[in-house]
């Protein structure tokens, strides 16, 4: 009977590739959403000063940020400038400890390459900055960067 007629060399049918790009895009968005830039939220107001002779910081993984400025929550914390290290306020006396902790977070041969980036509000008085610098010196953290914005004037 001719009912199950064999069709000669049928081959595999073509896959529809049209939706592949959608799948890739979905991947992209998935990873975009799931990765969060670990940028600790600031508790202090920081307006960086401007400078012309700026250098770019080379390796972002070897930079430790130290934020200094008046707290945002003026009602609770007053407007004396405070130090924010990572996600919490620190006192000047705590800095050697924080430096140590930061150093242990990095592999041993990177520890001397760490740059300590001071992000200081431009209105801040130098007193607290000097204190921080002194503490950094004492804890063998010598590579300092004064974070600024770039201007051409």
């Amino acid at each position, binding site marked *: 009977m001719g009912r199950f007629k064999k069709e000669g060399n049928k081959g595999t049918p073509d896959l529809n*590739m049209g939706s592949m790009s959608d799948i*890739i895009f979905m991947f992209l968005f998935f990873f975009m959403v799931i990765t969060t830039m670990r940028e600790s939220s600031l508790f202090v107001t920081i307006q960086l000063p401007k400078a012309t002779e700026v*250098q770019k910081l080379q390796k972002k993984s070897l930079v430790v940020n130290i934020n200094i400025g008046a707290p945002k929550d003026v009602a609770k914390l007053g407007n004396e400038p405070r130090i924010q290290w990572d996600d919490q306020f620190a006192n000047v006396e705590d800095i050697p400890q924080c430096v140590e902790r930061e150093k242990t977070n990095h592999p041993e041969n990177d520890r001397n390459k760490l740059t300590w*980036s001071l992000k200081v509000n431009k209105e*801040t*008085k*130098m007193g607290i900055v*000097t204190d921080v610098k002194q503490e950094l010196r004492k804890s063998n953290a010598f590579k300092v960067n*004064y974070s600024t914005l770039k201007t051409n004037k």
Partner: protein
Amino acid sequence: MAKKTPGLNTGSMADISFLLLTFFLLTSSINTDQGIQRRLPPPLQGDKATEVHKRDILTVLVNMHDQIMVNGEILPDVQLLKDKTKEFIANPTNDPSLSDKKLTYIKELDKEEYVSKGVVSLQNDRGTSYEMYIAVQNQLTAAFNELMEEYSQSHFGKSLHQLNEQQLKGVKKVIPVSISEAEPVNYGGK
């Protein structure tokens, strides 16, 4: 009857979107920080303070009212600090009141050069604003950068960033960035 439009081959669409993805991955950089980089001196041990001749020191004082004093003279504007520093370090006329120079052999350049012995001593009060401090640091950095640029132009006929690594090292030795920050004092209070 209208002819049916043939289907587009969309198989390569995935490749295109991957290409786009990788392109943006590579070209976009999370905004990197920039700023003025400095090296703090190691903490003082005993009284190991090196002696520097008086004429070799350019004292820059900044008080709590953000006023600047350079070697005993009040500077009306920060912008003037750059030229003042350049003049002091370069000392083109060999003025005995400006910094002294010493003939030093520079290994990287394989020749002898006059290297200024000048040191800029920066001292600020606890009451100085950070903005002024950065402005001063910026002017000092600009002075040294311009001196290096000038040296590079006159000796190699090239801009500083066109030099090779060894030449750059040499230039940095001819014009060392010698900014010393004095141990802090407290005159004006917080």
